[in-house]
């Protein structure tokens, strides 16, 4: 089932939690709402579920208006951040709950409930825990039971609020791959909320980057990472070096350097911010033909596949981060305190918009 979100506004007192949100989630897609805490992503998810009411705007499920539809009739599955399992019920009863509370006419028989609950517990690979109580499970197990419980009512839409937020790093990684596989199996339209960009980039078909109640960018993981639409997205997705300068006739002037950039040929001496990813900072021992800053190696972190280097520019003492492959790092044989040249590539500029 597709979801369409039209002109949603939500205020809490004077705080504008959501500011004219428009979003389409096609059937079967797995979408991540990504943003820092307080950006409105959870509020949006709860409005889709019907747990919260929008002040203005409408929600359409499969083209029909569901704005005033009761939570119980929206056919959504919701997985809460802290799982919200019923602590006094066994795992089996937790999963069976959605079936047992149905009116007698539509309630499945006891045998059918048993069959379906066990099928779901097998799907989440936890059938052997059916008789346990939620407090006796690990975080990852609780998360999967919460998912099984949400799926038991055969929802048309699955909504997950920070599904891996409370888990440790290793479990989180396993679970998000598992969720991705599960989604590929079931093809249920899913929206999940996260503040972890790595998680969103790895799991989602599409990412909706949110900030302060607004949508900053909607796109595939590749798009939002490679072509961020705003300075916020640039800073939020991955590490980035930020330079302040001016743009004039197709060149970015950062202090003493004039760097080539795409477009902006007509721009006339406008203040701007320039962004360069750490892996787009070339570190050289000799000054090349391209413009470069001279800098000193402050700190080297050679753990993992990439070597992270913190450099300090000699002209204004600002810090620049660079990432090198291990091969390149060996070639250069850099030492702490050495003087080098750094050459930014793929510079992306955003003109300062006068407020």
């Amino acid at each position, binding site marked *: 089932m597709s979801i369409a979100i039209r002109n949603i506004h939500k205020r809490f007192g004077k705080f504008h939690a959501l500011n004219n949100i428009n979003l389409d989630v096609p059937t079967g897609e797995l979408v991540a709402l990504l943003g820092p805490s307080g950006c409105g992503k959870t509020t949006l998810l709860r409005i889709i*579920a019907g*747990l919260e009411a929008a002040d203005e705007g409408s929600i359409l499920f499969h083209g029909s208006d569901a704005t005033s539809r009761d*939570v*119980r009739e929206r056919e*959504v*599955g*919701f997985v*809460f951040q*802290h799982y*919200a*399992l*019923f*602590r*006094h019920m066994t795992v089996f009863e937790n999963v069976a*709950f*959605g079936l047992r*509370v*149905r009116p007698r006419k539509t309630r499945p028989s006891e045998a059918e409930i048993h069959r379906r609950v066990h099928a779901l517990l097998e799907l989440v690979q936890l059938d052997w825990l059916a008789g346990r*109580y939620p*407090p*006796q*499970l*690990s975080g990852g197990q609780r998360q999967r039971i919460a998912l099984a*419980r*949400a799926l*038991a*009512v055969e929802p048309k839409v699955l909504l997950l609020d920070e599904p891996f937020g409370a888990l440790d790093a290793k479990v989180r990684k396993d679970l998000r791959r598992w969720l991705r596989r599960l989604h590929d199996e079931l093809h249920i339209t899913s929206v999940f909320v996260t503040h972890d960009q790595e998680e969103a980039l790895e799991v989602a078909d599409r990412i909706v980057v949110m900030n302060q109640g607004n949508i900053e960018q909607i796109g595939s993981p590749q798009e939002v990472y490679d072509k961020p639409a705003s300075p916020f997205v640039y800073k939020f997705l991955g590490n980035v070096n930020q330079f302040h300068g001016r743009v004039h006739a197709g060149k970015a002037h950062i202090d003493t350097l004039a760097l080539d950039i795409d477009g902006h040929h007509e721009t006339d001496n406008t203040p701007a911010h320039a962004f360069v990813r750490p892996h787009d900072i070339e570190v050289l021992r000799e000054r090349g033909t391209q413009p470069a800053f001279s800098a000193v190696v402050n700190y080297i972190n050679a753990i993992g596949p990439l070597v992270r280097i913190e450099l300090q520019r000699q002209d204004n003492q600002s810090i620049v981060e660079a990432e090198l492959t291990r091969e390149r790092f060996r070639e250069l044989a850099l030492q702490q305190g050495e003087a080098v040249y750094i050459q930014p590539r793929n510079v992306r500029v955003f003109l300062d918009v006068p407020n």
Partner: protein
Amino acid sequence: MSSTVSNLGHYQAKVARSRATSEPAWIRWSLIAIALAFLSLFLFIPLAAVFTEALRKGFETYIAALVEPDALSAIKLTVIAAVISVPLNLVFGVAAAWAIAKFDFKGKSVLITLIDLPFAVSPVIAGLIYVLIFGLQGWFGEWLIDHDYKVIFAIPGIVLATVFVTFPFVARELIPLMQAQGKEEEEAALVLGASGWQILWRVTLPNIKWGLLYGVILTNARAMGEFGAVSVVSGHIRGLTNTMPLHVEILYNEYNYAAAFAVASLLAFLALVTLALKTFIEWQSARSARTNEQSSEE
């Protein structure tokens, strides 16, 4: 499971008593001595006195004082007051705690303050309020007389006063508990399609059962032991509007010490049963909380 729990408790006790974190022996022993002396003076000696005085003139006199018609009627009235006020305040307490803990609405803090009112106000004033409203010279006095209803100096007044003074116990017990539990489980049930009643019976009540029972026991203890408010509205008519605490007072004023202490011993016994139940409930809820915590650490 239970053996692991007790082992854990044992282990923690050992850690707690390690030398680095404990006070010198003389401080520990003098604190214990002070506490014991205080408890004996104010609790154990009076409690023992009640039972010795009650039995001073022999067991037969003791029983006679309890089965005497006026005493029986007082016991009956006390039970009636408790049987009516406990369920009323149970329903009200759950409803109020549910509203306060799970919803946001205007005037919430006013409601919380109102619930606390019976704690803040002297019980005598509580009784007086009902006399002013329903008494002969009160707002509804004439209307009540015209229609031949008796509230003040009758059982309805006693029940009203009892309900008033026991009003906060259940709600006060449940509000912090329900606030701590949050509303995620209720929301989960809602999304899964449960109706309001189903959520109450299947999700909310099972989660608060120990706190609720605790509140009910406190309410009951207060309902049976209330003196001030009931004294004002009762009129002290022997065999008709005397509750147990009032009956004790009357007997005592008549220098009938043995009988007074005999009835008082019943109230004291009730207090002991209440304490035992309360301890049991605290033990039970602590045990379930500990099982939860311990197993979640696996």
